[in-house]
């Protein structure tokens, strides 16, 4: 292991332990790590935007003769008027463009790409053609979807039939949330395992090279 590698491992270990230290108590080392973290993450965007947007997407194609790109370039630059109290309204133009295009795609893709297919695959046969198990599953899905939709229906009081359906809905919702919680525990633990793998193997391993 070279001394550079050793240094790198110790730097990672220092910041890892600094952030974990908050679990015990708030402390200055944690605070230091927290502030460096905020700065680095912000700085990362500068390099990324400079390279992937300004150079490759804007500057190079413009030199190659695509002069129309002046328009989005100016619009992008106008975003910064946001910081001047007098001219901040100008940035709305750029923002409106971003919001407009995104909304246009969203309006269509949400209804077309999500609502239609999800409705379609809910319309399953409740018959016994595919066996009792499949029938039971189809019933669970159909009732679950409908009762969930009803639970999130606000135009009527949840009384009578609507009330009963909404009540079934909340039970379904709790089953799903429970499943979600169980699943998520796995995810979070995995990430901790990742850090412990580093600390146990790389960092503790490096001790033998020093001492």
């Amino acid at each position, binding site marked *: 292991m070279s001394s550079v590698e050793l240094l790198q491992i110790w730097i990672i270990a220092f910041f890892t332990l600094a952030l974990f230290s908050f*679990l*015990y108590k708030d402390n200055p080392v944690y605070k230091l790590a927290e502030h460096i973290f905020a700065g680095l*993450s912000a700085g*990362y*965007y500068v390099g*990324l*935007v400079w*390279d*992937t*947007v300004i*150079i*490759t*997407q804007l500057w*190079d*194609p413009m030199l190659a003769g695509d002069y129309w790109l002046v328009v989005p370039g100016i619009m992008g630059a106008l975003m910064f008027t946001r910081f001047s109290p007098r001219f901040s309204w100008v940035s709305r133009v750029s923002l409106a463009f*971003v919001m407009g*295009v*995104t909304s246009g*795609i*969203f309006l269509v*893709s*949400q209804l*077309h*790409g*999500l609502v*239609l*297919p*999800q409705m*379609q*695959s809910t319309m399953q046969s409740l018959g016994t053609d595919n066996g009792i198990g499949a029938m039971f599953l189809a019933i669970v*899905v159909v009732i679950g979807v409908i009762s969930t939709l009803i639970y999130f229906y606000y135009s009527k009081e949840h009384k009578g039939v609507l009330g009963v359906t909404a009540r079934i809905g909340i039970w379904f919702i709790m089953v*799903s949330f429970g*499943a*979600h919680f169980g*699943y*998520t*525990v*796995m*995810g*979070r*633990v*995995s*990430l*901790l*395992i*990742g*850090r*412990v*793998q580093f600390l*146990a193997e790389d960092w503790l391993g490096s001790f033998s090279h020093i001492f």
Partner: protein
Amino acid sequence: MSFWKTIEDIDRRWVYLMVGLAVIIPFIFPTEFPISITPETQMLYDAVEAVPDSSTVMVVFDYYPSTIAECQPMSVAALHHFFRKDCKVITLSNIPLGGPSMAETVTRRIAPLYDKEYGVDFVNLGYKYGYVAVLSGMGTSIESIFPTDNSGTPISKLPLMDSVRNYDQIAFIFEVADNATADYWVSIVNAQYGVPMCCGTTAVGAPKYYSFVQAGQFVGLLGGMKGAAEYEILLSKPANAVLGMGAQSLVHLLIIAMVILGNVGFFASRRNKRKVTP
């Protein structure tokens, strides 16, 4: 009563300490348990197997470095799988923070194992702002959205990209995501361009995507580290995800034990209260 009260009001730092120990112990005393394969993983494996050899596919790195432990094993396994099948791989990312560099590092680590060459067998397109625009735009022309690859080489100079114009030339998309970008791959690319795709996602995201699998919008699903471990087993390439399963097991059991203990305490102290105040 006081015993249960103490148990219930225990300082949370003791809990943290126990979790820490539960993660460390399996690394010292490793134990192995058989890993069963869930149908969603099997479906994903079969679907990737069914992709024609030597066709062009996309492997998407839509995750932040923070979830590397869960997501990276999936991308690694996917790359093994596609390279083994001699597929041409295009990688890209919709994650500004770290996405493109992870794609670069991982792919360049795996490719030499299969004698794959950059530009001919695989290409890293990198990152562009605005996933909605990127996903829609590539439907017409990939080059218009990504004029260059991640390191600034013009797309026209990469032999692999000669035959690839838009989604029509992509046989399969392997999305690995730790966030909602997977939804947009479904609602835009799958719905409008009909490219078959599957998804590897964190355990947090997985429950939502069962619905997409059943609707046929995803042909398979890997849920969290367990899903990754199953895929590694199917590929006969056990790696990090399989290794992590021991620690995973112990922490799960610890948390379950704590939930049970907490509830016993809750009921016990409630009964005691009833006794005290009739």
